[in-house]
């Protein structure tokens, strides 16, 4: 019963978001008379407010934890944690591989999980990769993109950060689809969920301390930089799922620019001090 309600909700919400998506495109097309914009962000004002809130949350809580974690925990152990998080995401990856019709990849994800959970000592090591079992993690947001659902407008979620209706729906559906939560029952799945969410956030943040500090300090518009990073990253994942070369989309953008455009202003010589 619950399952059915959730499915209806998911399908319903994706339809609504499709609507939003086309609305966003219309907004953009009216903008394009002034300036070409490929960014779908009709809720920018609200997003910026939530974004500022997230920065404060990050500054006070997440970043200090990540910095401490990085300072206290040796690199070797941190790499083990990264591997174990990757291993825990393999069952849901396998489910999504199947939903995307990727039988071979589903086999790889499943064998990775079996081998790394056993030979790889609960996933803290990755012997599967060394024998050629390599795969990318997949989430339900990516599956929706394979099914043709467009991302919809850019959203910044409180605490969770950059997203969009498609990826947020994917996030909500993950517990429904993840075999790790469905099989077993009891308290074990809850502690796994906590481990994955909490440690996952710290793991991700600790890997990006310098990069995000840098980005924040050097940005002309930090909000727009993060939006671009997120959207580009998700789009390139979607392209690789559909086995499209993501550089093709980029080529169009780069080709837009005329290389031999004659420059009328004074030529600036590039010198280094």
């Amino acid at each position, binding site marked *: 019963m619950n399952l059915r309600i959730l499915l209806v909700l998911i399908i319903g919400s994706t339809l609504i978001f499709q609507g939003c998506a086309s609305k966003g495109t219309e907004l953009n097309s009216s903008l394009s008379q002034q300036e070409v914009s490929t960014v779908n962000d009709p809720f920018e004002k609200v997003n910026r407010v939530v974004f500022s809130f997230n920065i404060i949350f990050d500054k006070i809580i997440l970043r200090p934890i990540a910095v401490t974690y990085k300072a206290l925990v040796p690199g070797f152990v941190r*790499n083990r944690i990264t591997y174990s998080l990757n291993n825990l995401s393999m069952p849901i990856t396998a489910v999504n591989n199947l939903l995307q019709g990727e039988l071979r990849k589903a086999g790889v994800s499943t064998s990775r999980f079996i081998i790394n959970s056993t030979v790889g000592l609960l996933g803290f090591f990755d012997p599967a990769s060394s024998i050629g079992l390599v795969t990318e993690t997949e989430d339900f947001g990516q599956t929706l993109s394979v099914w043709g659902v467009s991302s919809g407008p850019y959203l910044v979620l409180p605490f969770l950060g950059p997203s969009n209706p498609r990826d947020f729906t994917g996030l909500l559906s993950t517990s429904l689809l993840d075999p790790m939560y469905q099989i077993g029952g009891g308290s074990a799945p809850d502690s796994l969920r906590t481990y994955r969410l909490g440690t996952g956030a710290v793991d991700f943040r600790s890997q990006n301390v310098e990069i995000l500090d840098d980005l924040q300090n050097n940005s002309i518009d930090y909000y727009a*930089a993060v939006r671009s*990073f997120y959207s580009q990253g998700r789009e390139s994942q979607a392209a690789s799922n559909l086995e499209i070369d993501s*550089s093709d989309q980029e080529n169009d953008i*780069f080709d837009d620019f005329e290389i031999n455009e004659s420059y009328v202003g*004074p030529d600036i010589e590039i010198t280094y001090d």
Partner: protein
Amino acid sequence: MTKIRLHIYLLLLFWSFNFTAHSSNFLEEENFVTSFADSAISILSNDTISDPERTSSFTELVMSSIDLNLISKFVLSKAWKNASDEQKENYLIAFKDYFVSSYANKLDQYTGEKVDVIGSQEAGKYVIVESNIVREGTDTLKINLKWRLLNKNNQIKIIDLNIEGISLVIAQREEFQSFLANNDYDLDKLIEKIVSVSD
């Protein structure tokens, strides 16, 4: 026993699919990336020079390997064409300083490890060289880098660096466009902002 047999079966089944084809169509460009990465690493790991010296020779290497003029115009997009000559000059000077203070110093995070070139392909006017950096202390945690190169008058220059699907130049362009959209498309305000960030 059955479990072991299952493992072996799975291994045999999937092993053969995982060999990636190495297509080196553009040797010259691939060598360019390899030698750029090697020089970068040798500068960054050189302990015999002082920190400022290391930074300045690294900056020099980066600046001589990229087409900054083209990147400058590209990230400004439409606003470039509408700019006055004076604005263009101010912008180019400001962007150069900004680039040195943000990007040139930022790149050392990605070239600290060995860069393995894994292939190259044509992409319109450009050539894209694909490479991997393996994360320190692991065999398998990799960062994928794609270098967009332009061969103009037999001189190869870097136009863009794409890290795990994220193009730095496109991100920069979207940032500038967003700033302009929120500031009445006033280029002078953008130039002012660029100068203030690089100080």
